[in-house]
């Protein structure tokens, strides 16, 4: 672990040896449970400073309480979301859009993109989502009594839906997933190469769609107008890159963690299989238990926040997996109760940057579980195999070999 200098304004007693990257259970671990591992953040003070808590090794304040995370994420004036999360990998500073724009500019682009992923629009996409799930699962069921869910279902299912939305061909699915993997989980050499590859790809796609429009997201973006003008190349790139990266592995990870949970908890598995009406509510609990990301904000001014002397430029981490295990917000937060009500989890964040794709993601998870449970009989983790999980930038599960022989 890199030992970073703790800034002078951080009181030494507020520094804690905790990190989503280096704490126990965060590196690739067979049979790991990284979400449960970070719940230990609630054993200490509600806010502390972690000297090493971003992909590029920076320190952050860590906000553990859901109520405090809401305050941070709803207050975009004090806590900006622009930290060049993608472009900084290339030594550049342009924002991903709309994620890294603050209001009021944020609203302009958010309104442009919202209709594409609204609950109404997602209802229209739903038959295609279900058809894709059924096709994949039927083929798995026909070819044996075991499979690697990540390779054969979770990734092909979620990514192909996403590629269709973007207007990209399925046959390049593995290539795209590889880029995302290098970008999100790669080392200092792989990350910039992946970032450059993605930028070049998005720029070329934009050029192609300008020349030959089709019915897809990129065509929509290059033809769109905001405030009476066309979008700039940098804005088009900012949107394209964000949408591309955001859809590539979060939903697949969620489905992987969910099926791993059900493989280990046969009573819950059987309950959902025999009473599929329970799946929608259960999916919310699984979103609470296994969300993949932490949200980071940058303080725009000095502020004393709930006892923490946050100074301008400090990073403030709102990890969804920590908020979702807050005992002040959820009774028995470490118990997974698929019938839990009053479940105001933070899986999609709070505030104006609430995950734009949340409605699609939610339906993909529910449909994926419905069709899997309807078509695959009682399944367990295959003997002699162990799912490898990791924490970090995006919590993930690398493999999940299920067996229903």
């Amino acid at each position, binding site marked *: 672990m890199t030992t970073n200098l703790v800034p002078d304004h951080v009181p030494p007693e507020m520094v804690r040896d905790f990190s989503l990257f280096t704490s126990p259970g965060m590196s690739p671990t067979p049979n790991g449970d990284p979400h449960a591992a970070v719940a230990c953040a609630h054993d200490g003070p509600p806010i502390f400073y972690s000297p090493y808590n971003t992909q590029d090794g920076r320190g952050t304040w860590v906000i553990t309480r859901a109520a405090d995370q*809401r305050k941070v994420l*709803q207050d975009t004036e004090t806590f900006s979301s622009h930290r060049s999360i993608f472009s900084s990998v290339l030594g550049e500073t342009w924002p991903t859009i709309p994620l890294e724009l603050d209001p009021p500019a944020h609203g302009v682009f958010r*309104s442009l993109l*919202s*209709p594409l992923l*609204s*609950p*109404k629009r997602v209802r229209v996409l739903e038959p295609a989502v279900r058809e894709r799930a059924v096709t994949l699962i039927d083929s798995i069921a026909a070819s044996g009594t075991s499979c690697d869910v990540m390779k054969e279902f979770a990734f092909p299912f979620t990514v192909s839906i996403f590629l269709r939305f973007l207007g990209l061909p399925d046959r390049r699915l593995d290539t795209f997933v590889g880029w995302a993997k290098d970008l999100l989980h790669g080392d200092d050499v792989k990350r910039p190469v992946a970032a450059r590859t993605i930028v070049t790809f998005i720029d070329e796609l934009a050029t192609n769609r300008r020349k030959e429009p089709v019915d897809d997201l990129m065509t929509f973006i290059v033809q769109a107008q905001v405030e009476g003008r066309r979008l700039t190349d940098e804005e088009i790139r900012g949107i394209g890159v964000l949408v591309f990266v955001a859809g590539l592995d979060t939903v697949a990870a969620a489905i992987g963690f969910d099926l791993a949970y059900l493989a280990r908890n046969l009573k819950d598995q059987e309950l959902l299989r025999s009473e599929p009406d329970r799946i*929608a509510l259960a999916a919310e609990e699984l979103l609470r238990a296994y969300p993949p990301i932490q949200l980071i904000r940058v303080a725009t001014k000095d502020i004393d926040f709930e006892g923490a002397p946050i100074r301008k430029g400090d990073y403030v981490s709102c990890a969804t997996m920590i908020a979702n295990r807050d005992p002040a917000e959820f*009774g*028995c937060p470490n118990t997974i109760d698929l019938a839990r*009500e*009053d*479940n*105001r*989890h*933070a899986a*999609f964040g*709070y*505030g*104006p940057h*609430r995950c734009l794709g*949340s*409605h699609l993601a939610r339906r993909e998870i529910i449909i994926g579980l419905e069709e899997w449970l309807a078509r695959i009989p009682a399944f367990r983790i295959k003997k002699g195999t162990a799912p490898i999980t990791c924490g970090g930038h995006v919590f993930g599960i690398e493999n999940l070999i299920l067996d229903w022989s």
Partner: protein
Amino acid sequence: MRIIVQNSKCQGHARCAAQAPDIFKLDEDGYILPGDIEVAEGQELLASRGARSCPERALELGRALAARVESDVIQPRAWRA
């Protein structure tokens, strides 16, 4: 009897409408329509569930409604926990 809607806090999670689509009406983008909501008799429990599903705390139960559903909702939950 009424749900107080704070539109400025709504971020389009649409969880209220998922609970009770006939009570919580959304605009084209999935954000709640402006204006407080009068809850019809017999709909209180459903309405309170919808309001309590909002991650942003944009929906507040009017006092009369809160008191009325408390006996139905809070107690059954206590034994389950």
